[in-house]
Every structure is written in structure tokens, then in C-alpha cells.
């Protein structure tokens, strides 16, 4: 083996918290970018867009019911389907736990919260990125957002906040189960949540029990807010409700993730 360089007298100081988060986000993003599940998720979201339009967009009664452009109506559903990408956060942590790389990080002068925040950030950014791609496809296919690029930017912001919540949820599941398959499958629990909303038809057309479930479902308000931006314009109430619902969802899920992570750090990995 070749010889070593002389030891430096100066010991470096660990970087500040935001720099730690940025460095860890860079590492996790590089790994997540190679995850085929995320690409598949994006393909599925675009596929749903095409299939919903192919099956329902041709029915005149349905198109009249939703205001004339089915792509406008269905686009928020595809964006919400893409939000499953937030599950990347939990998968990053589970993979790191399984290869004991998380334990190594915990022996370094890296703040515990920086590790969690970086994973959640990567998950949320992936949701935002997937939302942008899905919205782009939607516009290419024929969607005509009433609020233009600015309105679509707000849709992405709502998706990003919703994605933070989904990332927090996946962190909870990932840290508790420490199992890749369970963490991957955890997103399925959100399928009923998404479908018990005015996803495919306006809320007024839902059966009473689904309408009730929809009224207490935060995903409904997210869909309605995005739909208002795309179909009707700058309507304050649904937009504020969508932001409030996504912030509330993110707050609950991230609080749960923090509690579970703190408990796990105390217990040891």
C-alpha cells in the first residue's frame, strides 16, 4: 500500500445544518434517480391520464358534466396519483438501515434531523417533479389551464406540500417496519383515500356515503383546489382549502414521522 500524507493539525468543523441537509439531499437524489419504481410510477400516472380520457372523455354526457374538457377535469387525479413518489423518502431510509449505512451516518457529526429532513425533502421534490411532468403531458394532450403557467405553479406547490405529507407517512412506515416491501406497498393505503374524493366526477354526482367520506377527506379539497385553478380560474376559497388541507395533512404526517424517528434514534437501529 502506498504511504499516507502527514496528519493535518487542524480538525475541520462540521458544516451547518442547511449544508448538511443539502449534501444529504444530493446523495439521496442520485440514488433515487436510479430507482425504476419512480419511473414506473410516472409512467402509470401518465397512463391513467390517457386511460381516463380514453374511457370517459369520449362520453358526451360526462364531458358536458365536467365542463367540456375532460383533460382539465382529470389532470388533478393524475397529479395525486404521482404523489405516491413521496414514498421515496421512506425507501431511502429503509435502504440505508438495511445496509447499515444509516448507522454509519449516526456515528458522524451529522444532525439526526438533517438525515430525516433530507429524506423527506427528496420525497417531496420527486412529487413536485412528477407533478410537473404530468401537468406538461396533460397540456400536450389537450388540457387548457385557465390560470396559465402561474396557476400550474400553484398546483405544483400544493402537490409539493401534499408530497411532504406523503414523504412523512412513508418515513413513519419505513422506520417502524424497516422493510422495503412494506414501505413500497404502504402507498396502497392511500388508494381508497384518493378514490373517496370527487376524482372522477364532480362532488355533486357522488352517492351520499361517498359524498360524506369525501367531505372529511383532505384529498378531496386538494383535488377541488387544483381543479379550480385548471378549470375555473383564481377562485380563492377552493385554493385556500386545498392549501390548508395539504398543509394539515403534511403537518400530521411529519409530526408522526418526527415522533417515530426520535423513538427509533433513542432505541437504536
Amino acid at each position, binding site marked *: 500500500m502506498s504511504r*499516507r*500524507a502527514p496528519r493535518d493539525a487542524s480538525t475541520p468543523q462540521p458544516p451547518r445544518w442547511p449544508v448538511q441537509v443539502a449534501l444529504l439531499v444530493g446523495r439521496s437524489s442520485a440514488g433515487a434517480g436510479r430507482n425504476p419504481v419512480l419511473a414506473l410510477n410516472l409512467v402509470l400516472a401518465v397512463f391513467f391520464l390517457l386511460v381516463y380520457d380514453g374511457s370517459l372523455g369520449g362520453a358526451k354526457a360526462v364531458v358536458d358534466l365536467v365542463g367540456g374538457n375532460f383533460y382539465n377535469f382529470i389532470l388533478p387525479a393524475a397529479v395525486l396519483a404521482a404523489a405516491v413518489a413521496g414514498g421515496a423518502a421512506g425507501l431511502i431510509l429503509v435502504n440505508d438501515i438495511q445496509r447499515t449505512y444509516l448507522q454509519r451516518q449516526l456515528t458522524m457529526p451529522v444532525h439526526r434531523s438533517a438525515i430525516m429532513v433530507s429524506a423527506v425533502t427528496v420525497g417531496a421534490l420527486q412529487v413536485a417533479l412528477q407533478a410537473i411532468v404530468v401537468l406538461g403531458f396533460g397540456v400536450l394532450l389537450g388540457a387548457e389551464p385557465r390560470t396559465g403557467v402561474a396557476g400550474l405553479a400553484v398546483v405544483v406547490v400544493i402537490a409539493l406540500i401534499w408530497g411532504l405529507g406523503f414523504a412523512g407517512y412513508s418515513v413513519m412506515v419505513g422506520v417502524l417496519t424497516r422493510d422495503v416491501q412494506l414501505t413500497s406497498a404502504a402507498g396502497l393505503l392511500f388508494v381508497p383515500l384518493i378514490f373517496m374524493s370527487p376524482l372522477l366526477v364532480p362532488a355533486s354526482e357522488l352517492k351520499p356515503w361517498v359524498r360524506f367520506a369525501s367531505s372529511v377527506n383532505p384529498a378531496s379539497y386538494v383535488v377541488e383546489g387544483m381543479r379550480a385553478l385548471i378549470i375555473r380560474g383564481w377562485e380563492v376559497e377552493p385554493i385556500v382549502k386545498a392549501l390548508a388541507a395539504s398543509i394539515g395533512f403534511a403537518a400530521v404526517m411529519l409530526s408522526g414521522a418526527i415522533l417515530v424517528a426520535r423513538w427509533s434514534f433513542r432505541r437504536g437501529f
Partner: protein
Amino acid sequence: MERICVEGISKHFGRGSKRVDALRDVSFAVGAGEIFGLLGSNSAGKSTMVSILATLMQPSAGSASVAGIDVVAHPARVRRSIGVVLQASSVDGSQTGRRLLGLHARLHGYARPAARRRVDELVAMLDLGAFAERRIDRLSGGVRRRIDLALALVHRPTVLYLDEPTGGLDPTSRLALWDEIRALRDEGTTILLTTQQLDEAERLADRVAFLGGASIVTQGSPAALKRALARSDAPSDASDGLTLEDVYLAVTTTGAPP
């Protein structure tokens, strides 16, 4: 001055009838530039001890300090002084060795150019040149172990924990790693080595401790322990034919110091 000071550490898991004692009233000290071998069978508590000293776990009782800093009261400060090679290879296999080393250098506080220089030093020092640009999960176990060691050395720690570092390595990689460990000791690094391979401990460690039944049964230099086994009043060459394996067998059979 002692770089690692462990006083009366106990660690138990579970409660009531399910309580398991992993460590019971363990004490030892390791000086600067010393290799201290912590030996024992599977589940003897070696890795638990490393986890406590690496701030991954808190003791149930007792105290420990590393570089003069209490591991429970100031874990973040302790982490700046230690480098850890865990029992299992702890790397992000999706990265290249150079990229991961660079990330760790930055996380330890090196500015980008200094981090690059430090990575170059480590790549040269551990003969990683041919592998540094390849994804880690496509490398052999021996090379991965060297990357593990490089990651632990990025910030020039004064205290290094090596938890069974040569497990699964071929003889050539093992000997090369031994050379590196000795060179680090000669530079003044304090090394806590846990291993089940007694020949490894005999060749590397200045002093060893045997863990048995969650407690330290005996500790001392390999030569002193062998002399004790051969009865300390006998001439020094009486212990020449003995090995640490004989000491281990005596300790595990009787559960008492030789």
C-alpha cells in the same frame, strides 16, 4: 492520557423476565496510540460496547468518555473524534467510492478543494485507485472493507473503532488491512478492535480484554495473559508455546481469569 475510558458500563435490553444483560459492570481504559482488543464469543457484548462508545446506544448504567468527552452528555462532540468501521459493511453501494468519500469529507467540514485532496490521499493510502470510480456494490468484499476504513478515516479521527474489520476477507486483504491498522496506531491513533479471530488480536493488539457472561473476565497484554496461564512464577519462556486461543479456552472453560 487515556483516550477511551469506560467505567462500570452495564447495558440490558428488555424488562422483567425478558431482561437480557448484554454488558455488566465493564471497565477498561485505552491510551493514545494503543490497540485494545475486545475479545469474546458471539453475543458476548463486543458490538454493544462499540455501539455505546460510538454514541449509537446509551448505557443502562456506568459512564464512558472518549478523548475526554462523556459519550452520553456530549455525543455530538464525541462523534467528531471517532471513526467507526461497523461489523457489517456500512456503505451506500449505489455511489462510487470517490463520490461517497467526497460526501463524507464535506459532511465532516472539509471545503470542496480540501475534500478532494483528502479523498485523493485516502484513495492512494488504501490502494483504491483502480476502484474509486466504480459503484461500490459492484466491488469485492475486500475492497468494500477498505472503503469502509477510508470512510472512517476521512476526518483523521483520534479514536478508531474496528468491529470485526477483517471478517470475510481473504488472507491477502486481511494482511493488508493489518498493516494499515498498525500504521494508524504508529501515527498515534487509538484503536478499539473487536474480533473473534484470536490470531488477529495476538498480532495487532497491545492489550486485550476477554468478555464472557457480559463481563470482562480478564484483561492485559497478550504476553502477560499467556504468562499468567503458564503460571506467572514460571520462567518467561514457559509461555512461548501458548497462544491467546489457549487463554480463551481457559477463560471460557472456567469463567475466571487464568
